[in-house]
């Protein structure tokens, strides 16, 4: 694809500069001495400070609006992550640790400061691929089975190494898996804060489940009011849900546009955007703004006949959480083979909107989103929950092949791999199952992951390497 133009280089440099400025502002606001103290307390801050490495990785090979979309999206991540970190520094009296399946919208509507312990295990390996390994080792040294998913192992390691912030309360749930649930036993022991466990119904596809879950959310709200300074502000919750709905509208527009062949935007610009803005900071105006800009960039590309990947040859559906420690997988695949990641299992959902007409409808809507979220509906219930989505997406987005990020620690999805192979074989959809671990580079190295891609593309897709 050749060297990037001066304009492309300037785009990336500009976003890198903005990221550095955000971090400098945080340091100044916090004060140098407190900053040094907190870096010693939370050494992962140093890994986060290397975020511009991620910008570089995800900009390689990308041009124009695609590159701008990546930079803009990551700049938004940096800003909100800093806001998150400032919650540790300045709002510890309102800090609530919440598991990744617990809706942060409600915590925000209560004036609380959410902190998702899984967040570090998700974002840091993207920046520094081996950043979670000391925590994984710490968890295993505590007696945690090595075959547990590395994300809860990272949470356990961060906890036992005392790198989690002290919080007023902890909220967890029975989702998405046993590993996730077990990690909160360690959090509970270490943090010594009161803990609340949301009971999310297993059979979630009926109104009874929605009513039950809404009841659980009410119970959570009143528990939080008893144990933290937070008080529910229903008007604020309505604003948050409406803002989330606006973001969903933009996302649907974006999906409509990327259905076109070739797609005007792709890969991380689409899937990290969903992963971050919908799961970590939905309902914020700044998050909606990112999606509004993504739509604009995609629109411009469509109007001008510009493809995100100029030589789009194959459209891929990514299944399972992305390969965190080789997060530039598709940047590489785009350049080598013209593979474009169009959609992924973590982004796709069919019930994005929340009815804000009453308190009850809002809670039911939030609950419905959680229960129908990818890590919930795909890991429970009949296999149709999983496969219906796969084949719906393949048809809707004109997908050529399925790339399954076969995270070795995810027993729920590993169990479905052979059925997936058989179903895709029948449907004539080529499948690549990448053997790897979500956040442990020692299981399968970067080279090992990329060679699996090469083998698949050469032998099954009969593709010639472009570069």
């Amino acid at each position: 694809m050749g060297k990037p133009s001066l304009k492309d280089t300037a785009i990336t440099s500009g976003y890198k500069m903005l990221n550095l400025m955000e971090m400098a502002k945080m340091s100044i606001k916090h004060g140098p001495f407190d900053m040094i103290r907190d870096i010693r307390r939370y050494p992962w801050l140093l890994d986060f400070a290397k975020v511009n490495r991620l910008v570089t990785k995800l900009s390689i090979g990308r041009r124009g609006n695609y590159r701008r979309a990546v930079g803009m999206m990551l700049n938004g991540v940096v800003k909100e992550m800093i806001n998150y970190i400032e919650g540790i520094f300045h709002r510890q009296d309102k800090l609530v640790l919440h598991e990744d399946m617990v809706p942060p919208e409600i915590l925000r509507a209560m004036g609380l400061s959410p902190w998702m312990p899984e967040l570090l295990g998700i974002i840091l390996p993207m920046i520094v691929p081996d950043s979670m390994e000391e925590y994984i080792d710490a968890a295993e040294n505590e007696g945690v089975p090595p075959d547990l998913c590395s994300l809860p192992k990272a949470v356990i390691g961060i906890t036992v190494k005392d790198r989690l912030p002290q919080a007023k309360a902890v909220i967890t749930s029975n989702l998405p898996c046993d590993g996730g649930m077990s990690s909160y036993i360690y959090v509970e022991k270490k943090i010594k804060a009161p803990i609340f466990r949301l009971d999310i119904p297993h059979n979630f596809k009926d109104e009874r489940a929605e009513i039950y879950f809404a009841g659980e959310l009410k119970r959570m709200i009143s528990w939080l009011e008893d144990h933290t300074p937070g008080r529910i502000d229903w008007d604020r919750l309505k604003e948050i849900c409406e803002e989330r709905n606006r973001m969903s509208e933009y996302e649907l527009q974006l999906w409509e546009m990327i259905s076109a062949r070739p797609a005007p935007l792709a890969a991380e610009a689409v899937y990290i955007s969903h992963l971050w803005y919908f799961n970590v900071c939905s309902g914020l105006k700044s998050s909606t703004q990112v999606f509004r800009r993504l739509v604009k960039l995609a629109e411009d590309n469509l109007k001008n006949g510009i493809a995100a990947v100029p030589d789009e040859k194959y459209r891929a559906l990514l299944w399972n959480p992305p390969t965190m420690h080789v997060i530039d997988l598709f940047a590489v695949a785009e350049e080598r083979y013209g593979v474009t990641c169009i959609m992924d299992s973590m982004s796709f959902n069919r019930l994005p909107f929340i009815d804000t007409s009453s308190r009850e409808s809002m809670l039911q809507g939030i609950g419905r989103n959680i229960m129908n979220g990818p890590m919930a509906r795909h890991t429970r219930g009949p296999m149709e929950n999983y496969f219906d989505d796969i084949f719906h997406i393949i048809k809707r987005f004109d997908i050529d092949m399925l790339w399954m990020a076969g995270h070795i620690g995810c027993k729920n999805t590993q169990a479905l791999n052979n059925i997936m192979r058989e179903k895709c074989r029948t449907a004539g959809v080529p499948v690549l199952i990448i053997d790897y671990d979500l956040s442990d580079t020692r299981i399968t190295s970067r080279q090992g992951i990329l060679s699996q891609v090469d083998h698949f593309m050469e032998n099954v897709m009969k593709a010639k390497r472009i570069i």
Partner: protein
Amino acid sequence: MTIEYYGGCDIGSTTGKAVIISDSGIVGSSIVPREIDPEKTAVLALEQALKTIPGISSIKDLSFLIGTGYGRSEISFAGENISEISCHAMGVYFCDRSIKTIVDIGGQDVKGISINDDGTVKEFAMNDKCAAGTGRFFEAMARIFRMDISAFSDLSLNAKNLIPVTAQCSVFAETEVISLLAGKNPPENIAAGVQSAVAKRCFMLLKRVGIIPKVTMTGGCAKNRGLIKAMEKTLNEKIEPLSVDPQIIGALGAAVYAKMRG
């Protein structure tokens, strides 16, 4: 009329293989031990294969040459290099078009391959992370039994019973076999357990690509008669014998591709 010759060279982890074909079929082949330098191995293998062909003396006389195997990218004088997975599929297709599934056991990996009607790869699965079930594993086992590899291959054919051996890990399997031998268990029964354990691993791999008859084996371990018997029992399918040495199938597939390119 000048005869056109096409070469395929498969540089594996333990041996180098070369096959030369012309319009009349295979005209030369060789198997040589691997040198440290893959390119040197390729030269040795090709020169040995060329020796048997009258009227051609140099690699340069080949109309087209394709490299395959782990060392394929190091063969600088090859016109192209192609993955060994595709080459094994094409090599088998050249020998017998009715074969649809291959288990290829090489020196350091095991692959399951399903073939399209045109000899290209439909699906594949591979184990290249663990030595259990590979050629290296059998070499280690033969050492423990104090036999050469061919004697060990036939040992299990005389087994009256089978003593189960865990082949999840080659190191632990070695320990287990040493204990069983020390316990005065009949060696042929232990060997049958070893072959059966490897066959079960291959079965799991083949399940991933789908077992469509006919099935064959390629790679050096396809000469292991004890393993073939265990595979037939485990798969409940006949392992189709090939008309050429199964160890040169990758090189043959490369030569067939070379003919297509040339």
